[in-house]
């Protein structure tokens, strides 16, 4: 078992506290099947790499959307060698909640500093206060991780007062209780089928992932109708693949929570299907 990063400095009054879903992501990312998959894609140590796989040697960028306490991103940053088979790694996070951004930045920074030298040279780019991947450069993300607000709710939290609630210095326009309940509701409320936020992220995925080696891990609960979600991803085309790679809490034959992996199958002939959008050309 790899160590779970410390989040003891985080105030869980307005930041999501690591729970079963967070731990399922940690377990999945460090499971034998996923580390084998990720080693194959990203490790750069094997001497037999020929010319055309030199791409493997550039540092992968891991983006976690909705970092919350930062426990997941910190885990990957501090255990890069065990998870990816390489020590170097760029880590970046986004969260809509400013308090979560601060908390997770500290969690990741601490985990990297305390990680034994053999396990990581994780390089932390920072956490930005943003809506999903809206401020991230297209085609840049190698590994995207998202534990979304997935609970079905009648409606999504209104963002009309988000600016006020999101301020670190309390300005007395609203009560602290209102502020904290607003920020916490953003961490779980998912609207219709609990999928409204996740659907937006899925829409952004093809643009944001690195076109050749990009892979995404997304957590779903049973009410999200995971099979339908996977069917929809398959409609993106034959260059995409999707698979359930972790689950927990079996109830009457149903997995309560699961993690799906969505990835680009290595293309042989057609090099870059969205070449027109690749900003690096």
């Amino acid at each position, binding site marked *: 078992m790899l160590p779970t990063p410390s989040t003891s400095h985080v105030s869980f009054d307005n930041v999501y506290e690591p729970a079963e879903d967070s731990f399922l992501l940690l377990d999945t990312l460090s499971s034998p099947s996923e580390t084998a998959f990720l080693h194959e894609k990203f490790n*750069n140590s094997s*001497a037999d790499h020929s010319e055309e796989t030199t791409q493997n*040697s*550039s*540092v992968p*960028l891991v983006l976690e959307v909705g970092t919350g306490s930062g426990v997941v991103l910190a885990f990957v940053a501090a255990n890069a060698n065990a998870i990816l088979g390489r*020590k*170097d790694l*760029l880590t*970046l996070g*986004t969260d*809509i909640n*400013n308090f979560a*951004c*601060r908390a997770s*930045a500290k969690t990741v920074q601490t985990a990297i500093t305390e990680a034994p030298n053999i396990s990581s*040279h994780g*390089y*932390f*780019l*920072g*956490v*930005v*206060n*943003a*809506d999903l991947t*809206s*401020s*991230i*450069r*297209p085609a*840049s993300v190698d590994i995207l991780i998202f534990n979304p607000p997935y609970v079905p709710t009648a409606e999504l939290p209104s*963002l009309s007062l*988000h*600016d006020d609630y*999101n301020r*670190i210095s309390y300005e007395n326009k609203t009560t602290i209780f209102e502020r904290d309940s607003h920020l916490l509701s953003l961490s779980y409320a998912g609207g219709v089928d609990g999928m409204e936020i996740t659907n937006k992220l899925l829409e952004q995925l093809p643009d944001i992932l690195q076109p050749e080696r990009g892979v995404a891990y997304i957590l779903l609960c049973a009410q999200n109708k995971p099979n339908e979600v996977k069917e929809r991803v398959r409609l993106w085309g034959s260059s995409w693949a999707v698979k359930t790679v972790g689950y927990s809490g079996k109830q009457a034959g149903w997995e309560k929570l699961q993690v799906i992996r969505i990835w680009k199958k290595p293309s042989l002939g057609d090099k870059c299907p969205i070449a027109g*959008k690749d*900003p*690096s050309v």
Partner: protein
Amino acid sequence: MKILTLNFLTCARKACKAEPAAFPLHPRDAELEIVEAELNTEFLRNVLPRVEWEALRVVTEELGLPSLPNVAPEPDAIFPAASTAAAATANETPANPAPTQLLQDLHHLLLETTILSGKLVCGNCGHEYAVKEGIANFLLPSHLV
């Protein structure tokens, strides 16, 4: 946030997504912080292929930091020859030759310099994103989304 972070960020407005002028975002009134770090040649070698040199050069200049060469240097110009050969087989060579000036500059720029506060300005629409205590705010008022 790091200087290198600007390599992976762009204006959050939909209308700017496809516009070349929206990248890189331009730092303004930036307050920097320097935190010393150990030189990590292996990391720098692997990160350079991911660096958009021109964007990094522009941002470095705008921050008033020592300027980078106009064109991305070849690895040989950055990494002392002995360590280049050794890196293929071993992670660390104990007897590394003295690091080049360029390597030291890149180390300082990429690993030791962070942006604490200021603004990031989109070159396409002019929108300013505030950075406070190292965290950039990319949330847009609803009429701009």
